[in-house]
C-alpha cells in the first residue's frame, strides 16, 4: 500500500514529530504573558496532567539519585577530597615559580591550561558572530543626528560622575589579573557593563556611531588573533624544547608573569566587546 502509493507519488501524509515534551501544557492558570492567552486558559487535558506529573517524578528520581551518588563521594570541605591531589599541590607550590603569577587561578588558566581559555574566547567570538548574523540589519539605519534618546536626567548625571571610575576599575582589574583576584574575564565584564551603562544613559545611537558592529568585530578578531599567535608561538617553542618566554620580571610587579599580562588584555577586550555587542545587537533593533 505504502509502496504503491509512493511510487505513484500520491502520498501526502505529514507526521507530527515535534516532541510533546517541548510543548507541555502549562498548568498555571494565572499566566501573565505578553500576548493574549485566551486559548491557553481552560485547556486542561488529563493526559497532559499525567505527563506533567511524570516529569516531576522523573525530576525527583534524578535528584535523589544524585544525592545518593554524592553520599559516596568525599564530603564538602573535607581535606582528603581528591581535588587536593598532586595537581593542586604543584599549582600552589610552584605556581609562582613556573608562571610568575601571584593569583594562582590566573596562572592556571593562562599558563597551565591556556588552551581551555583559548577555547573559551572562541566561544565568545562564535556567539557574537551568531548574534550579529541573526540580528544584523540588512540596511543600516540612518542615524537621527545622534540625539539623546532618553530623558533620564538622574541616570545621565550619575553616569557622568561614575563612568570614569568604573572604567579605571575595569582597566585595573584587567591589568592586575596576575597579582590579585580579577583578570581578563572580570575586568572585561566591568568594562562591558560600563559601555552598556553609557549606552543606556546617553542613547545607543551615540555609542554605536563610534562602536559600529564592524569595529567591534575588528577589535575582537584582532585581540583573538594576538592571543592565538602568542599561544601558538608558546606551544611550538615548548614542543621544540626551548624556553623562549620572556623573563618573568619581578614577582609582584605589573611587568611580570611572562605572557599572562598580554593574554589578560586580549581576553579583557574580547569579553567587554562581546558583552557590549550582545547589548548593541538587541538595542539597535529598538531604534
Amino acid at each position, binding site marked *: 500500500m505504502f509502496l504503491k502509493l509512493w511510487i505513484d507519488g500520491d502520498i501526502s501524509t505529514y507526521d*507530527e514529530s515535534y516532541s510533546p515534551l517541548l510543548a507541555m501544557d502549562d498548568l498555571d492558570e494565572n499566566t501573565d504573558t505578553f500576548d493574549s492567552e485566551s486559548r491557553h486558559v481552560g485547556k486542561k487535558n488529563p493526559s497532559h496532567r499525567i505527563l506533567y506529573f511524570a516529569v516531576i517524578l522523573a525530576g525527583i528520581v534524578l535528584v535523589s539519585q544524585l544525592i545518593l551518588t554524592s553520599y559516596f563521594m568525599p564530603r*564538602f570541605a573535607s581535606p582528603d577530597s581528591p581535588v587536593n591531589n598532586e595537581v593542586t599541590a604543584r599549582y600552589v607550590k610552584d605556581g609562582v615559580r613556573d608562571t610568575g603569577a601571584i593569583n594562582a587561578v590566573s596562572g592556571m588558566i593562562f599558563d597551565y591550561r591556556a588552551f581551555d581559555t583559548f577555547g573559551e574566547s572562541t566561544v*565568545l567570538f562564535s556567539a557574537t558572530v551568531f548574534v550579529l548574523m541573526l540580528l544584523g540589519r540588512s540596511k543600516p539605519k540612518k542615524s537621527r543626528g545622534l540625539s539623546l534618546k532618553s530623558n533620564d536626567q538622574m541616570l545621565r548625571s550619575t553616569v557622568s560622575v561614575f563612568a570614569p571610575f568604573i572604567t579605571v576599575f575595569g582597566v585595573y582589574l584587567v591589568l592586575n589579573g596576575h597579582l590579585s583576584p580579577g583578570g581578563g574575564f572580570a575586568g572585561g565584564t566591568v568594562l562591558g557593563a560600563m559601555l552598556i551603562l553609557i549606552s543606556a544613559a546617553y542613547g545607543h545611537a551615540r555609542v554605536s556611531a563610534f562602536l559600529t558592529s564592524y569595529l567591534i568585530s575588528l577589535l575582537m578578531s584582532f585581540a583573538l588573533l594576538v592571543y592565538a599567535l602568542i599561544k601558538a608561538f608558546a606551544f611550538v617553542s615548548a614542543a621544540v624544547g626551548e624556553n623562549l618566554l620572556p623573563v618573568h620580571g619581578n614577582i609582584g610587579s605589573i611587568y611580570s608573569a611572562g605572557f599572562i599580562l598580554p593574554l589578560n588584555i586580549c581576553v579583557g577586550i574580547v569579553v567587554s566587546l562581546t558583552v557590549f555587542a550582545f547589548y548593541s545587537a538587541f538595542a539597535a533593533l529598538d531604534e
Partner: protein
Amino acid sequence: MINTVIEMRYEIASFILFAIGLICLITDKHLIKKIIGAGIMDSALFLYLAAGGYTAGRVAPILAAPGADPGKYISPVPSGLVLTGIVVSVSTLAALLALTYSLNKKYGTMMIDEIIEKAKQEVKDS
C-alpha cells in the same frame, strides 16, 4: 542523618536547582521561561563545581611567595572550571535570546507550541 544533610547542603541545593532548571527548560512553553530555566541549570552546575573546590580552613589561592604551602590554599582548578563555564553559559543564553527575538518577530508569539504549529503549517504549504 540530619548531620549528613547539613554537611551536603551545597550539593543537595545544586541538584535541586539543576532539576528545577532542567524541567523548566524542557517542559515550559514560554520561551523566556525556558531561557531562565537554562540559566538556573547552568548556575546549579557552577555551584556544584565551586563547592567541590572548598576545603575547610583554607583561603583563596593568592599566593604570598614562591613555595607556598599547599595545605593553606584551596585548589585553583575548580575556580578555573567555573570561570570557563560561566562564559560558555553567557554565550548560549545570548544565542537563545537572539533566536527568541527572531521567532517573536516572525510569528508574533512567545509560546513554543503555537510557533511550532505555525511552522509546520509553513512546511506543509511549501
